[in-house]
């Protein structure tokens, strides 16, 4: 199995050998990015103007956003309660429970209101609310959340399932599973089983398979530069290859743990094709999965071609979010079916 991943990465080795051009070096110096990152962006965006729009947008803070938690409250009631405290919420049309915070009072902060502590809402990026909706679990489903902490998506899946069915949320780090449990309890998600282990170990449970799987894979976070400016220069191309290796391993495990006819949502908070289309292409070409078209979101399509590499045409069904076009964090997701 590891050989398959190693072979796949070796076949796509050109993606991890980037020679930055003079133009890339100049822009990297201007915007404070690593030059290999800019060289890749020159291959991703349609024009230099669009690239500069993207780079500029990375310097502006993201709009704060929350997900109204219908397990604990009614969203209209939440709007009123928050308004009384001086928070003005604006409903996001394309997200069933998503709100942008248009105005905040000097006190209290968004993460310390009574409504937050009572679990009426969760602070969550707009694009990161999309995977749970796209997964669209039913109330009978057994759902696996493979990298669950800190629990925003886990609790959103519970919300969509109205606390019915079961969500198995896996997290291997002790420090992170505490935050996950805290959020699960605060938000009143009562259909969740938390397991502290490496998801690899779930393979050892004979034949148990899930109806739907959410794989929000650990990633470079290249979509969160507004939140963490160090990401402009933190990840080397070798780090990116390591992330890709681990993401390929995870999607392979997800495939094994999924029922025939079941669905996986693969997502990352990264804009890097090496962590996104490359992984989905592996699921299509090596695992025989099928991408599904997703409607209703103001997103761009996945890249079919990038840095002299042609991916399977069906990666175009994947969704991409960018700060300069959608006003969200940089994000990627894809709905895949096991046939």
């Amino acid at each position, binding site marked *: 199995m590891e050989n398959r991943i190693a072979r796949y990465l070796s076949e796509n080795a050109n993606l991890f050998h980037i020679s930055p051009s003079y133009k890339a070096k100049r822009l990297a110096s201007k915007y404070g990015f690593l030059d290999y990152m800019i060289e890749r962006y020159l291959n991703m965006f349609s024009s230099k103007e669009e690239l500069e729009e993207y780079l500029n947008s990375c310097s502006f803070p993201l709009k704060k956003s929350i997900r109204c938690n219908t397990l604990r409250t009614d969203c209209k009631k939440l709007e009123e309660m928050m308004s009384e405290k001086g928070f003005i919420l604006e409903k996001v049309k394309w997200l069933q429970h998503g709100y942008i915070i248009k105005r905040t009072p000097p006190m209290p902060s968004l993460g310390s209101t*009574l409504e937050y502590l009572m679990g009426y809402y969760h602070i969550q990026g707009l694009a990161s609310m999309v995977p749970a909706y796209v997964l669209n679990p039913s109330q009978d489903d057994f759902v696996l959340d493979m990298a669950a902490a800190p629990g925003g998506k886990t609790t959103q899946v519970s919300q969509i399932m109205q606390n019915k069915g*079961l969500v198995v949320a896996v997290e291997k780090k002790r420090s992170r599973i505490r935050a996950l449990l805290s959020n699960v*309890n*605060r938000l009143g998600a*009562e*259909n969740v*089983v*938390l397991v502290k282990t490496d998801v690899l170990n779930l393979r050892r*449970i004979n034949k*148990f398979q899930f109806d739907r799987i959410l794989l929000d894979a650990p990633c470079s976070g290249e979509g969160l530069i507004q939140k963490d400016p160090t990401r402009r220069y933190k990840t080397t191309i070798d780090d990116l290859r390591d992330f890709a290796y681990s993401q390929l391993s995870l999607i392979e495990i997800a495939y094994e743990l999924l029922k025939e006819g079941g669905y996986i949502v693969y997502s990352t908070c990264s804009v890097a094709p090496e962590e996104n289309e490359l992984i989905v292409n592996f699921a299509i070409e090596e695992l025989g999965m099928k991408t599904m078209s997703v409607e209703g979101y103001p997103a761009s399509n996945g890249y079919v071609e990038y840095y002299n590499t042609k991916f399977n045409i069906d990666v175009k069904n994947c969704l991409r979010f960018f700060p300069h076009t959608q006003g969200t964090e940089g994000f990627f997701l894809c709905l895949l079916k096991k046939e």
Partner: protein
Amino acid sequence: MPFKEGIKMSFSKVGIDEVKPKLEVIFSRYGCVNKLSTFITNKSFYELKGKYNQLFMLANNSVNNDRLLEFLSGLLSKGFHPYSVGTPIIIYDRSEILPTLAFGRYLAEMCENKLVISDYNLIYKIIYKKPIYISSAYNYNDVIIVDKMNNFIAYAKVENRKRGVYEVIPVKDIGWYLRRGG
């Protein structure tokens, strides 16, 4: 009560007979023992034993129990155990039984030993773990603090300080989610 590394832990489904005496302690403490039988109906309970023990609760009508047991027994057979199942409701050892914050919502619905605080400034004191003082006569030592909409805020002790003045000392409050929850 944090679990400690190196303690051998065990996980199992537990019957009503084992659960009832433990829950009786809590239901008596907060004045809702008459609701206990109804409360435990149609629920499954699971126990995680370690240095401290935890009891979890899952509604029977919400999940395919056969499939859940298949998953859990698969997990246990390979030497793993869940970290949490459904809602954690009590934490206990030989000397004491404590209700969890998540259980507070249920108890606030059922119990009579309740202190309703309408003033949100006082509620903010409670969630910052500060005691408050009230003048109303209170016969309870242990209370559940709720806001005017019956939302659970805290477990607290009430102590008679001077004539007609009672100190309400938060024991565990939802501010924990901010201070420690992560």
